[in-house]
């Protein structure tokens, strides 16, 4: 092991294993996760080449091969618990990208959620056996998050009892679904249902797209890969054009809405029920955001402990770059953020399961807040993580740009999370809609509950919004409770400003939508402030519950750093709202610098606690043993350009250039 890293590990003030247990949920979970990871690490069938040296086509092939092997192995290993499947896949798929991914995450769950018992009997077995490989085709070339704008139609023909699925325009071509291009033979297609001359909105249909046996596209189907992307090279994101393509009536998923053989439409009982999957996926994404940032932090922090550069004191050996204040200021707030988001992700997942049980009992009361919260927090966390990964990469200097660092891959794999499952700005505005509703409710004299209950305390009934004197208690920057309170005030203030500006616009314009658009910058700001408060609050709650003294002390420091750093980044909001003074802001900045120095000795142990295997990190710079430079040189030698000593381009182009003079 690199001596610098060994020293770092020896000097930690706490046992990282304890944090690993907390992150996994229990020591037992940690044990089982490692057991599963070792199955993969020790299995020769899972050894594979470094993706970075493969062409796109080769990467796709390796990914499909892995999926095929995986189905068999999971059966052999007896892995069926959803969490365990996740552990298995996360280690085995470096980027967690697999062409059959949507088959498991969307196709089968949709079948289960929206298919009748008869439909499940018919489709589920072959799907579980992978004779049917399915995907989920929602977005179109011209339409994304705004679902009502989708153009694909499913017109019912009572004569033959079939639906005619059609892509009427170029913009209506299904675009982006994973696994659609080359892998899947079926797709669940979302289309506008038209029966008896009337459009009933979006419904889901099972559409066979490739022929069994030959895997050729069926007549009427045009399907293919959408070409090269920023990342996700292993994935065949696809396009699908359907040309008056007929499917039997039974292929419409009819657990809720139905079309009778004569074409009569039967309405579903409750539309909100279909929100479930969306809420689930978004809350899951928060956890993934934390994970991706944790990986990037692990790489950047380990490398910063190994890399030596420049001088702090003349004549002394070059210091580890982790000793530079600027480097700490880049990385430690992100480390704190990774921990914060990890706990938020856990909370979202637990809340989802709790609310889901309520829903199953018919109690939908908490659904609106959960729906808004998952939308907003998904956008909030993915935006920050997106920027954070890039920050980690740049903190690795030039080598961060090489694929050997592994961070470019983490970035390009993660960044779609800002767009998919709901474009982030749209998500923030969805949360804002909930906040505005809550604000109106308080305004009309009713109390609100949940995370927005601070709106009950708004002094807004007073005529001047500036009169926040009621709250004019001094923020104590050494108290996490007091700091959380400061975030709460900021959120309350920005929600109120957005609400007032919205009202002002509404009184000036006829259309509510136009007013909404003209207030949207303020609305997004309000949502962001609310999310920030939620994260701070949840982080503090979690840290307070930790038993082990040493661990709690370390995490408290991270919680302080997260909270204070956020205040200094958004200083304008806190100063403008008279929540804090300029003098306090100086103290905040001073305290941040102190915290950086306090966290410094534990930095490497804190990323070790994430417990990523080198295989998962896929990084030469972030290796556990810290032997960076030797391995970087070895890695580079594998580059395809190094296959021959003299590249063929020399003879073709360079030599003539030199001689034709």
């Amino acid at each position: 092991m690199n001596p610098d890293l060994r020293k770092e590990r020896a000097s930690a003030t706490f046992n990282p294993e304890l944090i690993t247990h907390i992150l996994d949920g229990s020591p037992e979970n940690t044990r089982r996760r490692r057991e599963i990871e070792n199955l993969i690490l020790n299995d020769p069938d899972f050894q594979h080449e470094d993706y970075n040296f493969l062409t796109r086509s080769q990467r796709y092939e390796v990914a499909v091969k892995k999926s095929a092997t995986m189905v068999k192995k999971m059966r052999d290993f007896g892995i069926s618990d959803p969490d365990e499947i996740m552990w298995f896949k996360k280690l085995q798929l470096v980027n967690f990208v697999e062409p059959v991914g949507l088959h498991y995450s969307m196709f089968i769950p949709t079948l289960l959620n929206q298919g009748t018992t008869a439909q499940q009997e018919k489709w589920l077995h072959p799907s579980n056996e992978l004779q049917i490989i399915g995907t989920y085709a929602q977005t179109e070339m011209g339409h994304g998050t705004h679902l009502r704008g989708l153009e694909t139609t499913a017109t019912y023909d009572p004569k033959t009892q079939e639906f005619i699925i059609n892509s009427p325009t170029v913009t209506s071509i299904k675009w982006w679904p994973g696994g659609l291009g080359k892998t899947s033979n079926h797709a669940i297609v979302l289309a506008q249902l038209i029966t008896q001359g009337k459009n009933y909105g979006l419904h889901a249909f099972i559409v066979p797209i490739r022929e069994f046996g030959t895997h050729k596209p069926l007549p009427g189907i045009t399907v293919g890969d959408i070409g090269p992307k920023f990342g996700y090279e292993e994935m065949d994101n696809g396009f699908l054009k359907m040309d008056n393509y007929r499917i039997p009536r039974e292929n419409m998923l009819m657990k809720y809405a139905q079309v009778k053989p004569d074409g009569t439409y039967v309405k579903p009982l409750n539309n909100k029920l279909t929100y479930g999957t969306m809420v689930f996926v978004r809350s899951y994404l928060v956890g993934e955001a934390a994970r991706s940032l944790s990986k990037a932090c692990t790489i950047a922090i380990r490398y910063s402990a190994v890399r030596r550069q420049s001088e702090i004191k003349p004549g002394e050996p070059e210091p580890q770059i982790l000793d530079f204040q600027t480097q700490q200021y880049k990385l430690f707030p992100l480390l704190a953020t990774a921990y914060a988001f990890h706990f938020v992700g856990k909370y979202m997942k637990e809340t989802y399961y709790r609310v889901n049980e309520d829903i199953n009992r018919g109690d939908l009361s908490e659904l609106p807040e959960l729906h808004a919260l998952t939308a907003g927090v998904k956008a909030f966390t993915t935006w920050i993580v997106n920027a954070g990964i890039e920050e980690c990469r740049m903190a690795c200097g030039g080598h961060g740009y090489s694929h050997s660092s592994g961070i470019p891959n983490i970035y390009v794999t993660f960044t779609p999370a800002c767009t998919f499952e709901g474009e982030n700005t749209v998500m923030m505005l969805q949360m804002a809609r909930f906040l505005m509703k809550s604000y109106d409710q308080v305004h009309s004299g009713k109390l609100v509950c949940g995370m927005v209950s601070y709106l009950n305390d708004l002094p807004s009934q007073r005529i001047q919004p500036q009169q926040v004197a009621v709250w004019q208690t001094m923020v104590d920057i050494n108290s996490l409770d007091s700091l959380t309170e400061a975030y709460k005030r900021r959120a309350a203030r920005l929600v109120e400003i957005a609400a007032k500006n919205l009202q002002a616009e509404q009184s000036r314009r006829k259309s509510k939508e136009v007013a909404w658009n003209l207030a949207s910058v303020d609305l997004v700001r309000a949502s962001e402030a609310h999310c920030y408060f939620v994260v701070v609050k949840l982080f503090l709650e979690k840290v307070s519950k930790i038993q082990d003294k040493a661990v709690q002390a370390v995490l408290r420091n991270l919680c302080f750093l997260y909270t204070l750093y956020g205040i200094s980044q958004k200083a304008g909001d806190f100063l403008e709202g008279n929540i804090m003074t300029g003098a306090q802001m100086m103290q905040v900045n001073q305290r941040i610098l102190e915290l950086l120095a306090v966290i410094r000795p534990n930095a490497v142990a804190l990323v070790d606690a994430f417990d990523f295997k080198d295989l998962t990190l896929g990084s030469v710079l972030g290796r556990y043993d810290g032997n960076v430079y030797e391995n970087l040189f070895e890695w580079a030698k594998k580059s395809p350009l190094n296959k021959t000593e003299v590249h063929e381009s020399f003879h073709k182009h360079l030599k003539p250039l030199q001689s034709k003079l």
Partner: protein
Amino acid sequence: MRSPVHRVSLGDAWSSRVHPDIDSERRTQSFDVERLTNLLDGGVENTMLRRKVESIIRNDPAFSLRGHYSMTQNELYEAAVRRRFHLEMVARRLGWPKDGRERDYAYRAVSGNLNLTLQDVFLNALRSLGSDEQIAKWDQLCQDYQIITSYAQTELGHGTYLKGLETEAIYDPATQEFVIHSPTITATKWWPGDIGRSATHVLVLAQLICSGAQRGMHAFIVPIRSLEDHTPLPGITVGDIGPKMEMENIDNGFLRLDRVRIPRENMLNRFAQVSPDGTYKRLGTEQSNYFGMVVTRVKILAHGALHDLQKACVISVRYSAVRRQSRLRPSDPEVKILDFQAQQQKLFPQLALSYAFHFLATSLLELLDRSYGSILSGDFRCLPELHALSTGVKAMITDLCAQGAEVCRRACGGHGYSKLSGLPTLVNRATAACTYEGENTVLYLQMARFLVKNYLKARLSPGATSQQPLPLSVAYLTAPDLARCPAQTATDFLCPELYTAAWAHVATRLIKNAAHDAQTLTQSGADQQEALNQTALLQLQAAKAHCYYITVKTFKEAVERLDNEPANQEVLWRLCHLSALHGILTNSGDFLHDGFLSGAQVDMARTAYLDLLPQIRKDAVLLTDAFDFTDQCLNSALGCYDGNVYERLFQWAQESPTNTQKNPAYEKYIRPLVQRRTARL
């Protein structure tokens, strides 16, 4: 003259018809787009020359970028060398002058997809650090490609901190040679472009050791490949450093030197000389050997990352004018996403900055031109300011261009993730600029040192400054400062003097803080280096504020000069206002901190900012047209001039090798999976 659509288009099936949604954006023109293009080009004759070169490139299939995004590293490299070769043949045929602008325009027209670009860095260094005899010997050889040159500075273990470089050049008076050596694995030269597979001669930066003493970093011309068969010369280990985020067309390389001997004459000796017996003589200052880097840094500002941001603006603004999504009123058709305030707030600050940085980069180039001659002749008085500006401004431009390009990419929703949009490539290129030619944090800190030094000079000896004035860019440090901003309405924030003064105030305050805190630390016993590290964040903040101030000020002065073009002046004023206010609002804490702005004033600034958005909205597409990038160099299915986004995206996707070649996984893996049941039956 032919219409823009013919001039810039790809000439494919959709070019003949302009999409009505983008056509309508161009129908009413509140300003003269062509004049703005001329201004950006630096004169109408430059615009004409550029378009002439672009049409040559466009009409020559050898320069095509079709299929670019699906190529492997090897293919990209070869295509880039092929284009370079072809370009040189064209240049010789047409007799393009060696130092003319034609090659720059050609580089722009193929969107930088060329190889052998490090030649320019080599030449910059040779001309700044080499003696007249050395220039006479090597310059022509290099320009004629008799030798293929590159520049090797960074090492596996060392980057921006040059003093830490480990490669050694030990002078051997017995043979009058330098022995160039890589003593450790971390000393391996790493990253230099064109080294991996192409270069024959490399300018190696190494620690000079002669007469038993370390003399610091110097530059040496080292032959690395045979001019006969291109194989590495004895003692040389060289190769490609492997896959990167982008710039796969360039063979960034590694280079290990095992006691390679080169003649004494191969050390560049304008500012330092080693005589045959090994006596060392310094002719310049310690900084003068960095002059080559300064020159290169300034020269890449005007294209480099700035072009990436400008192109990202073109693509995302045009696409936002064509993309329709959701409705503002239930009865209306879906709206152009460019009409959403949230979208405008993402894109227009980027557009404003891409203009602001143009004027900033241009002014820095002019400064370089003015001082180049005197520095070469040994007058180093203006070097510190030039050096400081080249560091801070480079850091600011590349940082904000990289972030801005990514904002533009994400503003295009899912399609921004497709390489066919062109945006991922732009983002990945812009981001590379944040580390090459100096890591940005380190560069900001270098600028901060210059600021603190001048601040202290002005404060400690106020009398002396009257005889020896502060360099122009920091003159404001001694100017009288306002304690409070006088703005009373939102409209007051549209006054250039007002916001420039606001930025000057914040920059002064932060520089003062950094200087005082460092002083306090040293007075309480910390040594100077430790004090610098302890106050690094303050310095960083100070340097950033100063750079933003310079940006706003330069933009303001450039717009003021347009008095004879009121329409163009007006449209640029809006961008100037927006860039200044965008900066104030994203850093409002710094302005509120000491009460310079009150909360109410920040609200006014926000109102002024939001009111600018719909005004810029009207001109947005035309403002991006004015950059006058050809469709070929944008190479984007989303960003073409004609706005036919979807048809082109579908066509380009279908041409992807994943669709034209056989599915490699089907027979081997998918078929056995799918047909298991059949097999079992």
